[in-house]
């Protein structure tokens, strides 16, 4: 049956531009301007979906994207509301939540037979025994109920953007009041944007005969005075700071407004009566939209039951479309005791009003026009029940928010429908919530079980938690609860309205994916040199350029080059810089000469190790502090936080990104440096732990003679933008020494051979200096410093655990984090472990009971489930006297 009317002047469709798509494999033809829903309805389809739980056939109810009745899967995208989704050539539309098709859904047996097993909360009651079968039940239930299915294999399609905007006035709702408010604000000189979810503004005006003209005139006027019209667009919610996210095509506009005008109008409420979900029962707005927007005749014979003027408007529209109106009930004039709809195969065939039956294929019914107050509630408005009109109205609206028109409660004097027209005789289901298939019986049952608060009822029955988010069921559920408990609606109250008010897809919320990564200035060169990269915090660093063992040998036997630009680098300068460092570090810096370097460990006020690095004194009042690769930001904050209290005269400047750093290490390091630097680097002029400035390959540099990897080494710190140039120079000039670039893996072996710790790897949030075997750092003979008290407490109580080196008598490499076992119990853990060619053993660091921290003591480590003996080593595994380092 084709329901398309003859061409009308104001229709939205372009009959000259046909569009074809398929629904469940069958071709459907519509026109440009149609939605999938309107095209399908025009071609005679009445059943659009199956209900959530009972799999009852469902048809169009609102035609405004407010309910769940027309949800389907479009081109693999589930839960698309067909009544508002513009038609697309070639689209593949399919019913969802069905076994079979929407016309023949085998799961509809649930409606006939499973009622007694599916009361509210049934999954806590009828499907709990035997308990071990719950996973099976759960799978069955999840397959039998729900919405569309997400495709876990789906990948991102299309582009999604975020835009940050601000205006003086944002109007939500493009009906006559919204447009009027926008025009007035713009005329007063404000910047104004208006959001409306229709393809053009006009709101309810567009649903009335002769409403198009005034709607267009208002929209044109708004454009003329500079109002920005965002249509179709949806306001998702109102957040703190008058932030309104707006879904506008593929863009999420994060709009901030000095004033938000909510002109969202009203939401037509369904009437609650047996058979109220039959296909063919719809809201007046839906019938009007079908006729006025898409020139569709909604039915042949209609019964119209409403509580306000929408009924009269619908009658006018239906008659103009050639629909025979068999009966009209205005609930302001007559309040029937009972209304019962009957049907065949899920479609309405008649209505009985107080026992008088009327044959029909269309029931246009609505109760109270509920002000759309959700956005106001998000903003903190108070909403009260208006007993005289049977709706919730906003009463206290916060500053910066204004409500106009229907949303403000301007709904005239509608009739007050019964919470339920079922009476006592009907056995047919009477739905309060069509999204979640909750009936009057379910809600009364929940109430009888003790769920007497509307918030509890919401969670127990899931009323208002479906896709309509309470638009079509909140008021009715409150009114039914009031009736059931013999109280009034104001005592029942409302449930909390939370964003999103309009559904929004996660891809729009997510926007474009961003993954900020920090790269050193030599990144591309590393890749050219064959490096495999790894993450260290936000940084990308070379793991190795080939064989890490060969890299280690290269450093021990010739010279290695490693990019250490990721080290945190901080300048601390000013009159009080030395005093400050003395107080924030446990060791001493005041007595350090300019041009010298010291190792430093930072501890928290609880004495726990938080970071480490070197401190070079560049001048009396200037120190250059390095930190761990991920620690710079936290150390700068730590310094600034303490100095906010101490008030020393100094500046802290984070120069981590400004400077690149390269460590040149190995017995040939000096010879290589001599080719490149313009300062003497011989052992006497440039001693171990000296800091000097000079040029390396012409690049201004700070050179630090330190040795994390245990060989003679120079750390070159220089402007990062010259990183590639300097690395190239080192590699070229070092070629005949056999200079090798080395990565993090070899660095980890080399530092482990020297038993140098990595903060965060070998320490955790509980580690203190004494137990980490660094008592020499603590200078308890100086004044107060951060963590001093705690260090004294540890000293007084004695050490319980110790970080020690160990050699393992096996060829199997244990995992880092592996257990140390004593008397069959875990008593410690391995923090670092590697195979060392230089030490000819598997070596590592581990936390062991303090009494095991004796040279040569043995303990057991668990490796692949077996206990392997290990021997404690308190000295470095390589060059224990540091002769190579100091050479």
């Amino acid at each position, binding site marked *: 049956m084709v329901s398309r009317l003859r061409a009308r002047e104001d229709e939205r469709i372009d009959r000259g531009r046909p569009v074809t798509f398929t629904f469940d494999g069958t071709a459907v033809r519509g026109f440009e301007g149609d939605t999938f829903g309107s095209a399908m309805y025009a071609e005679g389809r009445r059943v659009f979906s199956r209900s959530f739980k009972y799999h009852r056939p469902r048809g169009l109810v609102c035609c405004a994207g407010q309910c769940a009745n027309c949800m389907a899967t479009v081109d693999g995208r589930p839960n698309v509301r067909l009544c508002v989704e513009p038609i697309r050539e070639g689209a593949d539309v399919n019913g969802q939540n069905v076994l079979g098709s929407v016309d023949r859904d085998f799961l509809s047996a649930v409606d006939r037979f499973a009622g007694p097993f599916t009361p509210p909360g049934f999954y806590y009651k009828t499907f709990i025994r035997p308990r071990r079968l719950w996973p099976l039940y759960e799978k069955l239930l999840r397959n039998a109920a729900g919405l569309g299915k997400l495709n876990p294999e789906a990948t991102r399609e299309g*582009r999604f*953007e*975020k*835009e*940050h*905007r*601000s205006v003086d006035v944002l109007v939500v709702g493009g009906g006559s009041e919204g447009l009027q408010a926008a025009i007035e604000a713009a005329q007063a000189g404000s910047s104004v944007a208006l959001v409306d979810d229709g393809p053009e503004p006009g709101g309810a005006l567009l649903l009335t005969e002769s409403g198009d003209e005034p709607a267009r005139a208002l929209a044109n006027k708004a454009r003329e005075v500079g109002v920005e019209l965002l249509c179709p667009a949806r306001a998702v919610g109102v957040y703190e700071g008058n932030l309104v996210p707006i879904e506008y095509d593929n863009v999420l506009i*994060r709009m901030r407004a000095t004033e938000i005008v909510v002109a969202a109008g009203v939401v037509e409420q369904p009437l609650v009566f047996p058979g109220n979900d039959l296909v063919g029962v719809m809201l007046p707005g839906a019938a009007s939209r079908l006729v006025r927007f898409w020139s569709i005749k909604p039915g042949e014979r209609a019964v119209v039951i409403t509580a306000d003027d929408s009924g009269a408007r619908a009658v006018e529209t239906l008659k103009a479309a050639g629909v025979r109106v068999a009966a009209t009930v205005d609930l302001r004039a007559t309040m029937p005791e009972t209304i019962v709809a009957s049907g065949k195969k899920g479609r309405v065939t008649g209505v009985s009003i107080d026992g008088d039956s009327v044959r029909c294929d269309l029931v246009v019914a609505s109760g109270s026009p509920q002000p759309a107050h959700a956005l106001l509630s998000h903003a903190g408005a108070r909403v009260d029940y208006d007993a005289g009109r049977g709706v919730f109205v906003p009463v206290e609206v916060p500053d910066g928010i204004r409500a106009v028109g229907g949303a403000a409660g301007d709904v005239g004097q509608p009739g007050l429908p019964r919470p339920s027209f079922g009476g006592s005789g009907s056995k047919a289901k009477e739905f309060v919530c069509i999204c979640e298939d909750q009936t009057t019986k379910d809600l009364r049952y929940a109430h009888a079980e003790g769920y007497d608060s509307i918030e509890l009822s919401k969670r127990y029955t899931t009323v208002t938690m479906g896709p309509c988010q309470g638009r079509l069921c909140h008021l009715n559920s409150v009114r039914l609860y009031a009736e059931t408990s013999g109280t009034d609606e104001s005592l029942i109250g409302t449930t909390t309205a939370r964003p999103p008010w309009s559904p929004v897809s996660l891809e729009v919320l997510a926007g*474009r994916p*961003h*993954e*900020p*990564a*920090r*790269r*050193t*200035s030599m*990144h*591309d060169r590393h890749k050219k040199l064959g490096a495999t990269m790894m993450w260290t915090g936000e*940084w990308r660093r070379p793991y190795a350029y080939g064989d890490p063992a060969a890299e280690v040998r290269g450093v021990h036997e010739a010279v290695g080059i490693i990019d250490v630009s990721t080290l945190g680098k901080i*300048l601390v*300068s*000013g009159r009080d810089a030395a005093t400050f460092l003395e107080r924030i570090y446990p060791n001493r810096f005041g007595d350090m000469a300019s041009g010298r370097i010291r190792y430093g460990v930072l501890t928290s006020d609880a004495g726990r190790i938080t970071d480490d690095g070197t401190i070079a004194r*560049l*001048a009396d009042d*200037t120190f250059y502090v390095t930190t761990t690769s991920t620690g710079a930001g936290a150390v700068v904050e730590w310094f600034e936080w303490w100095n906010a209290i101490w008030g020393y005269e100094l*500046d802290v*400047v984070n*120069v*981590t*990104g*400004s*400077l690149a750093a390269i460590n040149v290490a190995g017995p040939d390091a000096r010879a290589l440096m001599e080719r490149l630097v*313009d300062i003497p680097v011989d052992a006497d002029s440039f001693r171990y732990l000296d800091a000097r*400035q*000079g*040029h390396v*390959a*012409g*690049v*201004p*540099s*700070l050179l630090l003679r330190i040795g994390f990897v245990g060989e003679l080494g120079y750390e070159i*710190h*220089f*402007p*990062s*933008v*010259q*990183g*590639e*140039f*300097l690395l190239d*120079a080192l590699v070229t000039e070092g070629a005949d020494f056999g200079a090798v670039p080395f990565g993090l893996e070899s660095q980890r072996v080399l530092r482990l051979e020297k038993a140098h710790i990595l903060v965060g790897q070998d320490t955790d949030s509980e580690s203190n200096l004494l137990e980490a075997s660094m008592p020499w750092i603590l200078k308890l003979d100086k004044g107060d410093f951060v963590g001093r008290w705690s260090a004294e407490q540890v000293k007084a109580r004695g050490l319980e655990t110790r970080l020690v080196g160990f050699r393992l008598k096996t060829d199997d490499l244990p995992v880092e984090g592996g257990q140390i076992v004593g008397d069959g119990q875990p008593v410690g853990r391995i923090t670092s472990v590697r195979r060392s060619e230089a030490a000819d053993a598997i070596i590592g660091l581990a936390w062991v009971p303090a009494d095991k921290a004796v040279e040569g003591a043995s303990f057991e480590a668990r490796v692949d489930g077996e206990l392997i003996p290990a021997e404690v080593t308190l000295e470095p595994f390589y060059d224990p006297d540091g002769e190579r380092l100091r050479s």
Partner: protein
Amino acid sequence: MSTLAFLSTDATADSRWTPIARSPMQRQQRERGARFETRHGWELAVAFPNESEMLESVGIAELPQFGKLDVRGAGARPSATRCTWYQMTPQRALCITDATITRSVRAELQESARQVVDVSSGLGSVALIGPRAGEFLRRITELESFPASGVVCEVHGHVLTINGGFLLLFPQEYGHYLYEVLLDAAVPFDGGPIGVDGVPRGTIW
């Protein structure tokens, strides 16, 4: 050398070597057909194909050669005109200079400031130029009145106004990421990269 000379590329002295500065965006610039020239010690992307079309919407120009000075203490202001002063807090400012005068401005500011740290190497700089630059900027940052500091493309940076657009300053180690994100964000605008020479005269100073 002065105490903090190692922070400044212009402290280059050794005549045997000619150090070159390069930005982390260079690889992507090459892929997009940039022509490079060496100026002021920098290998700069001076031109790209179709620059005039980009400038009708939003052109993205990397200008890494600018000097950037982190100035601490109140009172100091440079006398030169080819520089921009961004007072971040009463005690801290950022001074952006033309590459040719960075050394002299630094010396001048050091006379009166408590501390001047050359962060030229630490901050990348990209200009967004064209009639849709404002609209483009709204897609990448929440900031709305400039100059301002805050999050741009998920990275902390600074946004300054220039004639017909904006100048973004950001930690250079995010340069490759930021360039990729900016060029991608420019796609719906039909915008794209322009070179140093494509920046219309008078845009910056």
